[in-house]
């Protein structure tokens, strides 16, 4: 029982003629923007969404809350594997999740940013790290064999 869910419905909100338009204010659904595994076109953004959301829910969510012009949304459910077994030989299930591919309207594009860029680790001058780096490099250089031997080990020879 997940007590954090706020917009749970007892039964799904069954519509009957005359009912007011169903509106959800402050939904307890959260989208996760993910980097696409396979190459996607420039205007496609990939989200992981809760299972209960539909294409229309995502369209309205992004348009009303975040003012993002949405063209078309396609969803699919990714099956989480049930194959792995733990130390007691019981099957361990990875959770299923829903993925949405949102294509933006009005010619907008989006590329997933590089969150973990490569840092140039140049150690500061005169510090311990620099001396250690230099020492390690010298050691490695000493361990290497004579390059004129062409990779042949020391054991062959006189």
């Amino acid at each position, binding site marked *: 029982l997940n007590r954090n869910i706020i917009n749970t419905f007892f039964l799904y909100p069954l519509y009957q003629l005359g009912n007011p338009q169903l509106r959800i204010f402050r939904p307890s659904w959260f989208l996760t923007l993910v980097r696409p595994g*396979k*190459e*996607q*076109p420039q*205007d*496609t953004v990939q989200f992981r969404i809760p299972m209960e959301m539909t294409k229309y829910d995502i369209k309205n969510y992004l348009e009303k809350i975040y003012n993002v*012009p949405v*063209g*078309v949304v*396609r969803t699919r459910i990714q099956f989480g594997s049930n194959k792995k077994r733990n130390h007691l030989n019981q099957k361990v299930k990875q959770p299923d999740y829903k993925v949405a591919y949102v*294509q933006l*309207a*009005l*010619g907008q594009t989006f590329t997933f940013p590089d969150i973990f860029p490569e840092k140039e680790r140049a150690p500061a001058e005169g510090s311990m790290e620099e001396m250690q780096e230099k020492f390690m490099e010298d050691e490695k250089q000493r361990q290497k064999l004579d390059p004129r031997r062409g990779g042949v080990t020391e054991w062959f020879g006189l």
Partner: protein
Amino acid sequence: MAARTRLPLLFPRNLFPFRSQKLVHTDVSVKEPAYPPIVPSLTAKSKSARRRQIEERVKKICTSSVEDKLSLITRIQREKFVVYPQTFARNADRWYQHFTKTAYIPGLPEKFTPGLEKTTAAVPGIDDDAFADIRSLVTRVILQEHWQFRKRKPFMYRHQEQVVGPFLRSLVSGLTYSLAKYNPLLQLSSLDLSPQVNFYWRRGQRIIPKGHRKRHLEPTRFQIDDRPHSQIRVTQQLPQFMPLEASHAAEVPEITLRPNVMPLFRRQYDNNIFTGAKLPDPACYGHTQFHLVPDRYHRDRMIRQQQADQVEVFLRANALASLFAWTGAQAMYQGFWNYEDVTRPFVSQAVITDGHFFSFFCYQLNTVALSVETDANNPRKNLLWGTESLRLYESVQDGEVVGLNDGVVKLLVQFFMNQP
């Protein structure tokens, strides 16, 4: 006195070794040893053997008749992308341009004068009286469908099929028959209602990621199965709009992503190549196609939902795919295929309508060699000309058609009058 030598009873062949003619010193012509050509094997499990197999197959197809060519090319069934001409995918026209190597040129070729002038300037071959006749025919057809027939309200999402379909059919047949006296090509033409047009081709390749054929190169195959509302097939080919060499400069969008991202789906079934009639039919060249827009295409709804650009994209993608399939099938019927490229351009026209808005498109097929091997040095590109949607009439009120656009009628007439 003869010397009596002791000759043997039986003469061996070599008895007088120096007496034969063969040892006389003459300039004997030296025969060069003739070896058979050294070619790679046909049945070995090697890359050169595979290449030779493909070459043999290509030679076999080149030397066979047209029916055999078609059946050999479409014999093997494998998974292919099914391209639907009427698709709601976003930016479908860019994708289809990439699949068919087509460049889009906005506007129509110079042959068709801009059709938005209000004056009834003379269409070549038609004088003003005839044009007035055509105009009255068009108004009659519009009134018949929308005013005179007591139709019940069409079913949900069946408006195009039940109202616009019959209107377009009567319009097209009326125009064909009345313009046949000015255009001799139409007298020998065939007007098909709801024909099938199919085309199968290969373009691009991918590396198979998984399975027993992993790391092999596989060509991407495409198939179009189209059902235009109606089409006119003629016995002679229409003249080209632009010379072949002029298409080298055109730009075709390059897309490096796989087609299934578009989204486009793969299936395996019969590979068909069909223009609308079987091979021995004399009317094997195409003239004009007419397409109806599907019922789920709501122009106003798309504009409201900030997808105004997709309105034209849909029509362009439809025209592109349908006309490419038709012209490609026409070229195949003449024996041109992937390894034997077309020697003359194949030209067809299309009109896409939803009853009120008409869009006109012209297509010129300059190359059918789209697969990886033949496309490497192929500078030719196919060309598509197209207009934006033009309104034919504003509305029908009190038995009168209000705001009939003469420019659109003129363009329609020009399309019908196109002849070599």
